[in-house]
């Protein structure tokens, strides 16, 4: 039966199945063949029970991860036409990463990468709303294949009225979109948001970090547990609200009306950060801001803290 295992290995390699999977499949067969031999099966009986290695490999290759780049090519694009202004987007994923960019075309293009069970996802565009939802997974086992990802290309010319994304472990990268109400949340994934024009901004993470670069909005809400927020060039017409437990906040080159920080032990460090007013509620978290412009005073509106301080250095 050694020959069977050897042939099976060859057939699996021919199918370009990845090494990890081959190892496991061979170990499973070794075990099953040993069980059969222990029961005293003759060679003939063994052959009947285990049959043809090529057939096993053929079957397995239909749903098994392949070596390297083949995984990337596994999925085909999903395209939606008929997008109009003020459309909505709702995304609910588990461990898949999300990459969102704009393009000059009129349609929405979705490129699933290494999602081998794409038919289990809900992906639809109805009534001017795009919906992407992961299938419900059983809690006890959870297969996270490497690099599962959705890449989205959205038409640059259409405004999005409501954008809502939730993810458990996936990272989210978003660039250059225009949205009225923007809502994003993840537990362990990181958020990278770049070049967004929004009216409402709401982001929440547990362990993941939030990176915000070149964003304009009317109102900004961010909440973290232990993740950090890095904010660069944020122009907020009204107020910035940040809630954090132990995550730190860094704000560079940004402005707003009032900046409200509620924190347990997380600090806020600002540089060239010009809120008109500041509010701090903290246990031990501090606010420290270093600015150059003397003509933009910052009013400390409220400070309620056990041991936290507010320090503003100008010049």
């Amino acid at each position: 039966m050694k020959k069977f295992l050897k042939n099976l290995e060859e057939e699996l390699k021919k199918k370009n199945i990845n090494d990890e999977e081959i190892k496991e499949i061979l170990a499973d067969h070794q075990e099953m063949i040993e069980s059969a031999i222990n029961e005293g099966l003759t060679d003939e009986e063994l052959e009947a029970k285990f049959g043809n290695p090529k057939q096993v490999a053929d079957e397995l290759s239909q749903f098994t991860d392949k070596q390297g780049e083949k995984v990337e090519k596994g999925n085909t694009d999903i395209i939606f036409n008929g997008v109009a202004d003020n459309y909505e987007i709702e995304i609910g994923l588990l461990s898949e990463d999300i990459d969102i960019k704009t393009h000059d075309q009129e349609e929405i293009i979705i490129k699933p990468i290494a999602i081998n069970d794409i038919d289990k996802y809900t992906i639809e565009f109805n009534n001017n709303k795009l919906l992407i939802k992961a299938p419900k997974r059983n809690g006890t086992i959870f297969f996270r294949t490497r690099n599962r990802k959705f890449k989205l290309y959205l038409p640059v010319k259409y405004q999005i009225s409501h954008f809502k994304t939730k993810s458990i472990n996936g990272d989210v990268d978003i660039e250059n979109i225009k949205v009225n109400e923007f809502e994003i949340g993840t537990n362990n994934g990181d958020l990278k948001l770049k070049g967004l024009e929004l009216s409402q901004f709401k982001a929440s993470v547990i362990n993941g970090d939030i990176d915000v670069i070149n964003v304009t909005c009317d109102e900004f809400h961010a909440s973290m547990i232990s993740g950090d927020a890095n904010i660069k060039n944020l122009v907020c017409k009204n107020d910035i609200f940040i809630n954090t437990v132990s995550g730190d906040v860094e704000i560079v080159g940004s402005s707003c009306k009032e900046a409200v920080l509620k924190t347990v032990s997380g600090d806020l460090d600002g540089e060239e950060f010009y809120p008109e007013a500041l509010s701090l509620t903290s246990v031990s978290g501090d606010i420290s801001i270093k600015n150059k412009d003397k003509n933009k005073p910052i009013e400390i509106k409220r400070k309620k803290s056990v041991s936290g301080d507010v320090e503003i250095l100008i010049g």
Partner: protein
Amino acid sequence: MNSQFKKGIIELCVLKELVPEDMYGYMIINKLSEHLNVNDNTIYPILRRLTKEGYFTTYLKESSSGAPRKYYHITTKGFEYYLKLRDEWDQFIGGVYDILNKGGKTNEEILEKFRRRIEKEEHQ
């Protein structure tokens, strides 16, 4: 038999075998091949696929001969899937029998009717 169709039925049987107890791979092959003409070629890929899809979980357990064996355990999701497949199968096979049993349940009954029809045609 159409292989896709056959695969679906064997999938249903594999699920059913695992409802009352956890089993190792060779044991499942053995149990099913008592009733159906199947072997590793058909069963192992099904075990692997259903595991990937979260219908089964696996764990290793020592055997009497020493080497640990991989046991397959059906999940709640797997059981729900089994119920769904079973339903589909019952409906399908019910429909098939409705067709086959029209005009008599045994081959003798149907043969008798067929013979009468042929005779009638010959007389015309």
